[in-house]
């Protein structure tokens, strides 16, 4: 049975969806992803849908679920690469997609996730370490 590959990039997880997600595959993706988020204490999930031609309410629900589950485990979700035709159709369909942030491409999506990272204590100390002349 096919599994959708999940890649690790630093504190983030990258998922590229390239096949039509039917019910069982989608549910597997949800659980695999959430396990991984937990395992590596991921801070962000990037879902690349640039190869997806059709997003119906089922797919929308999956994306929403992933975002909600990840947030519970303290990770942000960004969906990238939505095709224009899909965007227009989703607006017409009336799919809310709350809690799902979006970006144009993987690059911008990563930048967005980076900007949402909580500032760690080590970074704050670096600023104070400047030597006065």
């Amino acid at each position, binding site marked *: 049975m096919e599994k959708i590959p999940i890649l690790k990039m630093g504190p983030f997880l990258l998922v590229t969806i390239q096949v*039509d997600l*039917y*019910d*069982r595959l989608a549910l597997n993706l949800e659980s695999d992803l959430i396990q991984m988020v937990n395992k590596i204490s991921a801070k962000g999930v990037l879902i690349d849908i640039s190869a997806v*031609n*059709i*997003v*119906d*309410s*089922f797919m*929308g*629900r999956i994306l929403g679920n992933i975002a909600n589950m990840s947030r519970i485990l303290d990770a942000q979700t960004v969906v990238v690469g939505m*095709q*224009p*035709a*899909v965007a*227009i*159709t989703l607006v*017409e*369909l*009336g*799919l809310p997609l709350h809690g799902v942030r979006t970006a144009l491409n993987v690059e911008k999506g990563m930048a967005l996730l980076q900007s949402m990272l909580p500032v760690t204590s080590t970074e704050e100390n670096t600023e104070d370490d400047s030597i006065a002349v």
Partner: protein
Amino acid sequence: MAIAKEQDVVPFRNRVREVAVKIKMGLVNQTKLITAASELVRNMLRYANGGKILIEVVSKGRSNGIRLTFMDNGPGIADINLAMKDGYSTGKSLGLGLPGARRLADEFTMQSEVGKGTSVTIIKW
């Protein structure tokens, strides 16, 4: 086409895509049509365990369109008006399927009889 299990959905969507491309339908309209079809076929699978879908090419003057008729022998819908409201769902879904499909299609008709089945027809030009 006969739809009996969830694996039938993808070939069905591909078939609709094929026909749409053949009649030179624009990409956005193709996407809207297949998304609407996806919603309706899911309904058919979830509530009626499958059914039959008729794919037809229709013409109006110089333009061509596609008509999809979804027929099942499921439980039927008691209150059509209620079913067509956004957010109403008897399952666990978002409740966007029927009203969403209507918004995406150019023409939409539905008939249903409790205990006998449901038939939904959509046309996209």
